[in-house]
């Protein structure tokens, strides 16, 4: 009860002096005639009405299917899978680590890991997804899959015209539908894509340098002892 009274007290304090001291004259100026405000308002709307035929800036409506405004760079709709090169299947960056599948809050990602391995962008042997499905009717565009992916393999798309007449199959995208080239990624998120490329390039350079160093070391080792055993583990 006391709490309620305390909560109600402030409006009482504010309200009372206003109504008693100034009466009702708080909103309307002293010398305004009755109806003056209405006329002013009518003038304003008349201005809106007539000027909308003259100045194009007044009409901010974008008539969507015919007119389009470019999407902002940070726009995101649903995820897609990035691939390098020309062949989507060979170039998929995804290594089927299944982190995104586990992290996905609404659990809309379904991944089957391959039995065999294939080389990734640095040439290291990796698994690849034999199935990578995203149910976009479940996806909530939270971007968590993108944030957790250590391989820069999944990114957010800006394509939003995804209507289909098939409620179930039409909204379950397989890896082929999800695959988009790195060039496409550059075209929709240029800044982010360049950063990603720089990072990957750095990593690749590091790996190559290491490989080169290892090769050199191996070569030096091979050169040092006069009679080493031929061949060696590749």
């Amino acid at each position: 009860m006391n709490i309620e009274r305390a909560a109600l007290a402030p409006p009482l304090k504010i309200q009372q002096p206003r109504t008693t001291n100034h009466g009702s004259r708080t909103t309307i100026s002293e010398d305004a005639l009755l109806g003056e405000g209405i006329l002013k308002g009518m003038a304003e709307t008349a201005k809106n009405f007539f000027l909308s035929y003259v100045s194009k800036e007044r009409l901010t409506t974008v008539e969507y299917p015919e007119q389009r405004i470019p999407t902002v760079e940070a726009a995101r709709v649903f995820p897609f899978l990035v691939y390098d090169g020309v062949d989507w299947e060979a170039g998929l960056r995804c290594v089927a680590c299944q982190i995104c599948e586990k992290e996905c809050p609404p659990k809309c990602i379904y991944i089957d890991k391959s039995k065999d391995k294939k080389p990734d962008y640095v040439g290291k042997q990796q698994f690849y997804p034999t199935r990578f499905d995203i149910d976009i009717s479940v996806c909530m565009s939270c971007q968590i899959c993108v944030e957790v992916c250590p391989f820069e393999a999944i990114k957010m798309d800006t394509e939003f015209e995804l209507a289909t007449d098939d409620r179930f199959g039409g909204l379950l995208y397989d890896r082929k539908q999800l695959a988009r080239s790195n060039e496409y990624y550059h075209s929709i998120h240029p800044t982010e894509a360049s950063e990603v490329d720089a990072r990957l390039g750095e990593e690749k350079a590091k790996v190559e340098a290491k490989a080169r160093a290892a090769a050199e070391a191996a070569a030096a080792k091979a050169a040092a002892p006069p009679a080493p055993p031929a061949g060696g583990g590749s």
Partner: protein
Amino acid sequence: MATSPLFTDLDQIFIILRNWLVGFLPAALRPATGIVLEVIAIVCVFPGLFALTTVFERKGLGRIQNRLGPNRVGPYGLFQPIADGIKAIIKEDIVPFSANAVVHFLAPLSLVVAVFMEFAVLPMGRNMVLVDLDAGLLFFFSMSVSTELSVFMAGWSSRNKYSLLGAMRAVAQMISYEVVLLLSSVSVVMIAGSLSLPKIVDAQNSYTGIFPHWYIFTPWGLAGFVMYAIAATAETNRSPFDLPEGESELVAGYHTEYSGFKFALFFLGEYLAMFSISGLGTTLFLGGWSAPFSFLTFVPSWIWFFSKVMMSIFVFIWMRGTLPRLRQDQLMNFAWKFCLPYTLLNLIVTALWHFMGEGWMRWVVCTAILVAVYVFMGRVEMRSEHFGPRRYRYAE
């Protein structure tokens, strides 16, 4: 001003057309057929205007709010009413389970019929009036009052609290403003000396120099017209007096439980009421079908009537795009404490105008009285405790 026979023919084109059509029939059937043709004309023209007005209203409101408005159906969205009509017809007609089905069915019908009856006495051009009743004004008001019955029938028979509240609001509002509406037109009757609408138009159809003798160009006429316009807006439930269907608090007011074509009929009734009340206002204060300048009298009279009505409709739409809805107590206060006293005063001023005779004196005296009282009421009375912002009291 000498008018060529072409313009006279054009002015009377509908009368000529009717006589030509009727001429094909035997003499005994001619008067009745003539009336039927006129009724058909009214029943076709005004719903047609209604269809056009709905799309122009939406476009106009859009422009007022810096939007485009409907522009998808047909060129510039002009076929929108056809799409709306098709939608209204093919929609399911739902009658609530516990509604009084007969009254629920009759309400929209009786509304539209009563509103159509109002057009019978409106002179829409020279010689263009369906029935020239001696008490045409009285007939008009009795018909417009009976729409209140339909509104209440709709609200009561729906057995829905929103409908009933909306109907009660509508009836309270319409009865309050009916008084103002009637009294503001009484001053016209006092000067014109007739309740017949064609005679009232004739009384205004003369010119001093190039300027017409419309009643709006007199002090009492202007005051009466302003009061009439306010009351007409309230009478047709248009914004800012659209409390009976205030969607934020009452869903849709008295026609909440109507769907499909019955709803379309209510919609039609509302717009027809707007046309008829604009037509009456035109007839009473704006010189009916008479031209605004003496050198424009060659233009057919019906063009003037319809352009004046459409101008009034534009003002209705303009006000709807500008003003927010009133609160119920503000609405009632305004009717009974401002409009009614002011129209009563206007009656006295009209009498004064009549008895002071010709001369500049009556202009000065009547204008002075009306302006002084307007300023006084606006400054002092409307700002008093009773009218100001509502004082909220909190429980302690």
